[in-house]
């Protein structure tokens, strides 16, 4: 039996180009955080002096007020409805366009890039900003919120749908193509069953996410529980504010649970 050979590995040096590059990266990251802390005006003193003020409000907030519970619950229902309609609208629009934004299945390169740009723009503008614009266009109320949620989610969802479709195995699609299937047939018969669980998962995520996001849309006048949040804060009515926060907490938790249960069933 031969003896084990000695394996020669390439030499490393502390002053090699790789190490120098690594040092440069560390310095850049430190610099980035230094500048960011300054720009964000982070100040622990302000937090320390502000905390007792908040504690005082919390004392005054007890017991939470219940005399306007009916209107607050109606506003909460508005928030759920706004998120549900907006997300559904986004789902339908995203399903129609996502194929165009996939590298592997787009019908034409000429459509791929414009579609990606459109989706990136929609995704880049937050629901909150869209809602602000739509309040000016269609007036105060939850409909502006629906449009805001719908447009932003359209972009985000279509992008995630497209990514799910891009990871699909090409084999079954080719097999069905070789049976003489046309493109719409291939998409419906071979692609859809394969990606349906991922698409359902993405959709549930956005539904859940949009209910949380919609709680603040009222701040810009787009209806829902957020409007009451802002009103209570403006009036410094802390017991009412406390009730609003409790309703939001219960609502979001319930939706999270429901969505987790649905995910277990669907995926």
């Amino acid at each position, binding site marked *: 039996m031969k003896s084990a*050979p000695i394996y020669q590995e390439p030499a490393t040096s502390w002053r090699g180009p790789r190490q120098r590059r690594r040092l440069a990266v560390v310095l850049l990251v430190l610099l980035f955080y230094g500048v960011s802390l300054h720009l964000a005006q982070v100040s622990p003193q302000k937090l320390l002096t502000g905390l007792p003020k908040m504690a005082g409000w919390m004392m005054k907030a007890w017991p939470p007020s219940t005399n306007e519970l009916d209107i607050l619950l109606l506003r909460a229902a508005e928030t759920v409805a706004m998120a549900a309609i907006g997300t559904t609208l986004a789902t339908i629009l995203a399903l129609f366009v996502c194929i165009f934004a996939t590298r592997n299945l787009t019908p034409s390169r000429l459509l791929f890039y414009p579609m990606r740009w459109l989706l990136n723009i929609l995704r880049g503008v937050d629901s909150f900003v869209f809602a602000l614009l739509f309040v000016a266009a269609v007036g105060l109320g939850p409909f502006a919120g629906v449009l805001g949620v719908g447009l932003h989610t359209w972009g985000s969802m279509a992008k995630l749908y497209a990514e799910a479709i891009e990871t699909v195995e090409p*084999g079954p699609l080719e*097999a069905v*193509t070789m049976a003489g299937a046309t493109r719409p047939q291939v998409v419906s018969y071979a692609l859809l069953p394969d990606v349906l669980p991922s698409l359902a998962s993405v959709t549930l995520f956005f539904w859940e996410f949009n209910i949380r996001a919609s709680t603040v849309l009222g701040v810009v006048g787009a209806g829902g529980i957020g409007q009451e949040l802002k009103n209570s804060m403006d009036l410094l009515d802390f017991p009412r504010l406390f009730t609003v926060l409790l309703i939001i907490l219960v609502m979001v938790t319930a939706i999270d649970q429901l969505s987790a249960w649905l995910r277990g069933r669907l995926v």
Partner: protein
Amino acid sequence: MSMGTDVAAAQLQVLNLSKHYHGVAVVDNVSLTVAPGEFVALLGPSGAGKTTLFRCVAALTPLDGGTVVVNRRELHTLRGAQLCAARRDIGVIFQQFNLVRRLTALHNVLAGRLGYVPTWRVLLRRFPAADRQLALACLDWVGLLGHAYQRADRLSGGQQQRVAIARVLAQQSRFILADEPVASLDPETAESVLDTLRSIARERGIAVLCSLHQVDLATRFADRILGMRQGRLLLDLPTAQLSAVHRNLLYAAAAPEAQSMQQRSTPMPFGVL
């Protein structure tokens, strides 16, 4: 089975087919024919270009030169609806089966009917009764009628490949292309799958071109053997004429890595075994 395949009667005729990737010829000037009812095996080491040749023949990959004629139609000149219609004549069986995993075995076999059915029926999953009967008959023929309503991903590898064969049968193509159909299967299952493919050729007069990398399987099942190496077709013989000389032509010193594994020059590191 005669070796001199009559070109006029051939189901598949490939003439001077070439395919390059980055300037390297992966398939180099290959010509071949397969006649109705003939089971032809294509042998060759990994990397010989068998899969690329098959993808070119199926028009899944464009050609750099040559022609492919299936059922008297020149495949690579067709576009759109004509290409879809022509593809119905080519049944393909893949190494990885390529079933739609979340559909039932029956729906996977019905996929073979997609080229004959209007799109609205496909969208609603409403196939004509005749197509469903045909699909069930095909499943019955491969011995899987009892699994018709099971999801494809619940079946074993051998069963999945049988569903894939049933899909090709339901397609009623006159020519079947099988790309390493038994490479992912255990030896016994492999034999039964090849046996099924041979009966399809014999009983239904379908032309079968099947790539394999086990010489013994090829000699046992095929009527004729083609041999490929480094993109070129080196052999085209009736099975009975295949000799050790021919085997060496294809496989000798073909895989230097495989050799170095056998002639190990260093001992196993301590503790590996």
